[in-house]
């Protein structure tokens, strides 16, 4: 019996927003997060529009299907959201959406930590 939920497998097979964005634009940033053991990592690219909403979000992930699915599901939430709305997404909700087991749930935090990491590089609006 597969250890991955249908929701994880659906994102894993058809990830949403995989890829990268050019970060030479000041409104486009890149953030990254790794799990405690360091083996799994999620890299997030977001471009923020003048309206302080996330215009585009892309991810890269190295890790098990759960890490890839968590990044894909998070990016689907981030696109079009305001920064505050994106920051309000919590790992427990993402874990529920993906039907993760307790042992799998910590991986849901990776894209959210990558988001915070990326936003730290966002220059304040002039």
């Amino acid at each position, binding site marked *: *019996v*597969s250890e*991955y*939920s*249908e929701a994880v*497998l659906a994102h*894993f*097979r058809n*990830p949403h927003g*995989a*890829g*990268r964005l050019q970060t030479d634009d000041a409104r486009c940033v890149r953030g*990254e997060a790794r799990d405690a*053991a*360091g*083996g*799994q*990592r*999620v*890299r997030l690219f977001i471009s923020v529009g003048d309206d302080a909403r996330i215009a585009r979000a892309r*991810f*890269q*992930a*190295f*890790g*098990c*299907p759960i*890490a*890839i699915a968590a990044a894909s599901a998070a990016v689907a939430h981030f696109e079009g959201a305001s920064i505050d709305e994106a920051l309000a997404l919590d790992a427990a909700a993402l874990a529920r959406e993906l039907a993760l087991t307790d042992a799998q749930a910590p991986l849901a935090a990776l894209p959210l930590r990558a988001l915070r990491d990326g936003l730290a590089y966002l220059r304040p609006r002039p």
Partner: protein
Amino acid sequence: MPRVTPAIYLDHNATTPCDARVVAAMLPYWTEDYGNPASRTHAFGWRAEAAVEIARAQVGALVGADPREIVFTSGATEADNLALFGASRALRRESGGKRDHVISVRSEHRAVLDSCLALEREGFRVTLLGVDGDGRVSADALRAALDERTALVSIMHANNEIGVVQPIAVLARIAAEAGAAFHSDAAQSAGVLPLDVNALGVDFLSLSAHKLYGPKGIGALVVRRHAPRARIEPILHGGGHERGLRSGTLPVPICVGFGVAAELARLARDADAAHHTRLAERLFARLSDALPALVLNGPANDRLPGNLNVAFLGVEGEALLAALPELALSAGSACTSAKREPSHVLKALGAGEQRALSSLRFGIGRGNDEAQIDAAAEHVIAQVQRLRALSPVWDDLRRTGARA
């Protein structure tokens, strides 16, 4: 949760299907000749005993051993435990406590490594030898580790993960010169590599039936009777079966199955080895023609026929496995993949974490053919390309031209 039936089985280092001829040979011993071979007073017992003795001779013939040297166990794990605990304890006691040192290798099977840890708790000193980049143990390293206190050296013949074959004959001679006994786990190599206990010069050899198209639940420890005979004592106590070394009623049907499987393996060995090697080379050629940045874990030559362990840099092994429901494969060894840690064998080679996490093991066996290998290669190539396209590790490798 979905239950996926993989179309192509490529995990023969984990287990093999039981040969139909083996199953047929076992059948009468469940319902007709069901006697206990230890029953000396009636024909049911005599027939069961005769069947077990034929099996004992067949298993012995596979490795050039006398039938009296075969001790049936529940599998290679028990055989390893019997050798490690039984020999170490007996040798320490016999030497009046002087020989209290055990030597093994970092890339051994868990059955040996965990036994070594338990021996440490019993007061033994344990040395685990390192290996070179291909996984080989050097004679010099063994020489340097041996001393007058060494009771037992345990080094596997062929590694279950990376297929490296150790120079057992050389290593066993070095151990003998130091007065130490020598054990080797040959669960992977029996049936595909020439295996002769006299040529190897070992005192103890572990075997498993289910790795050579026999039933699960049975193996053997070959306990040599040559002079000077290495001491060993039982770890299970009871009726004194198996010359006192392994108490418990013999499981006659699977003893018979093990015997027939060993006989078939002995006859098919060279053909099987050539078939497995040809398909493994075909698979690696297909993969490396289509995919850059592959690393073969283990040596290019002198490896277990049919074993292929490849690092697909930039792709995590668990993800690649999940992306390949059509294939039955494993990431490292079956036990390690449940724990989600980089394989201790790959770490012992000095492989970086990225390489260890990106590795898959292909185990080719009798049932595989060219069409399956080509189909498997196509699936793997497509999924590696797909997962690399979304991998930050691969993106970095590609941009910097670096190699892990």
